[in-house]
């Protein structure tokens, strides 16, 4: 029993690191642009499909496949940004309506990207080469899959990297200025549309990396990947607290732990039911999210 509990917790953390990578990109876009990009997952899916195609045609190595996934996700992301986010950004007068138009537009492109991917590779399932072929690591009675360990390391590195980028560079200063006061930032000479574009590109690259690590861990690609990535990313972001990077990681780990434990206790249908129930209850009772609750519980410390 105790061994299972620990193993499930380990599995939950590992699953959570995949969600964290997805949630970080989502949060970056929402935190800066104040808009939800529903096409985030489908763009990742298109990248993964491109990598699958390259794998089928050329049997390329893992670095090439990772690069193709990232570039593919960035190209699809750029298309979404140009068509759904950049044009609506100019209407600064009607903020809410523009945000809704961006979100609905990104949903429309979701349909498009998904259909392009499935027309390109029409089978229901393609196998994808694993990142690492050996057996899982054994830690006494517990096991740990190397792919998920790589995800955890990447998630932690991405979180620290993003923090440094935002806190210590001129680009980060521009981003923070826009988040605080977009109009004032514009008056101070910051090229707001360009910063938005770069943030979008960065988030898409992160999403591509997440997508590669996830399909390499699952060793398969299916048309469900797009919706799955958008949903898990957005749920983790909302659980942690909208627009906060450490919140995204906390929310992702919480989602992973909830899923791992409830799956073991009650099975996959109840796993999803409980995950949605927790999200619903948290939004109804504490919409600021888990990270804000943690910070309040540990007292007023500097961020």
């Amino acid at each position, binding site marked *: 029993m105790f061994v299972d509990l620990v193993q499930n917790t380990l599995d939950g953390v590992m699953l959570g690191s995949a969600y964290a990578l997805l949630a970080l990109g989502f949060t970056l876009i929402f935190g800066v642009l104040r808009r939800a990009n529903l096409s985030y997952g489908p763009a990742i899916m298109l990248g993964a499909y491109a990598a699958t195609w390259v794998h089928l045609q050329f049997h390329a190595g893992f670095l090439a496949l990772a690069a193709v996934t990232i570039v593919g996700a960035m190209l699809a992301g750029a298309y979404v940004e140009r068509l759904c986010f950049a044009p609506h950004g100019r209407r600064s007068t009607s903020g809410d309506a523009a945000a809704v138009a961006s979100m*609905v*537009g990104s949903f429309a492109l979701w349909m498009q990207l998904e259909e392009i991917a499935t027309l390109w590779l029409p089978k229901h399932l393609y196998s994808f080469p694993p990142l690492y072929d050996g057996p899982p690591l054994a830690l006494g009675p517990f096991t740990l899959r190397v792919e998920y360990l790589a995800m955890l390391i990447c998630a932690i590195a991405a979180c620290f990297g993003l923090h440094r980028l935002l806190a210590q560079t001129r680009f980060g200063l521009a981003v923070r200025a826009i988040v605080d006061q977009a109009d004032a930032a514009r008056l101070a000479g910051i090229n707001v549309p360009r910063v938005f574009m770069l943030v979008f590109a960065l988030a898409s690259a992160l999403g591509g990396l997440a997508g590669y690590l996830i399909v390499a861990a699952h060793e398969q690609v299916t048309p469900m990947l797009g919706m799955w990535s958008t949903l898990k990313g957005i749920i983790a972001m909302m659980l942690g607290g909208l627009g906060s990077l450490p919140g995204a990681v906390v929310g992702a780990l919480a989602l992973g732990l909830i899923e791992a434990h409830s799956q073991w206790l009650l099975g996959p249908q109840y796993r999803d039911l409980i995950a949605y129930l927790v999200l619903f209850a948290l939004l109804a009772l504490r919409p600021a999210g888990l990270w804000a609750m943690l910070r309040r519980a540990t007292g007023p410390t500097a961020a």
Partner: protein
Amino acid sequence: MDEYVLGVLTNIGLFSFLALSAYLLLVTGELSFGQQAFFGVGAYAAGIGTAMWGLPLPVAMLLAMALGAVAAWLVGLPTLRLRGLYFAMATLAAAEMFRILFELFHYQRTVDGELVGPDGTQGFRGIRWVLEHGIEQEAFLALVWTLLLLILAAFAWLERSRLGAMVRMVGEDPELAGVLGVNVARVKLAVAAAAGALAGLGGALYAHHNTYVEPRNFDIMLGVHSLAYALIGGLGTALGPLLGVALDIGLLESTRVFQGYRMIVFGGLVAIFLLFRPRGLLDEATVAGIARALARRGAG
């Protein structure tokens, strides 16, 4: 009438109920990803009513509306103070819970020597009241569109009434509405319940048109589509959502020109279209302009 055309017209009518349900919430300023849940509640409730309990269809439709309204009220109670993405995600979580509950829902009994009723992920077969009562497809189409026209008439009345002005005010500026003495929370809850009843009625008709429903019918895609229909059609008039449905189902799904590429065409059209009309085809300004033009012609 050609059977194919009949099917398309019926489908446009059926999904218009759901699009109108999403529209009603949009007018109060709330973006719901979860109206498909109440469509599903209505479908299951009405199916159980006619196929298992032997109720006549009109009674089953009333039951579906009542349960749809209660379910929407229960979801709205803890969530309607949320705004924007928070509300959208809360309704999405609720709708997915409903879908999973449909998957876990087993309730069957033998009727006329045949086992009927919801059977989890296997779905719910044999909702045959319409067939058994010899109702032709044309008659069913007429029923769907008569109900829809009645609802549109109710919307038209609402837009001109004090209540309608209150609902629009809550959507545009809830703080101001509150200061002016509108009970914002109560208006929102009432609108959410009405939207639930509307979706429930649509679900009841949908179940009896298809004779078979399964939990997968009521997934997120249906919810986001109905929201998109309302937004493409426009937020100025209740005809907007119908226009949105007609564009997608009538123009793209049915004209087989785009077969296989429908989503690429529809998705691209919507995204480009939103650049020019971010509040939809029939937005408030357009509707007001048309109304003025009609009034001038009437006067002259």
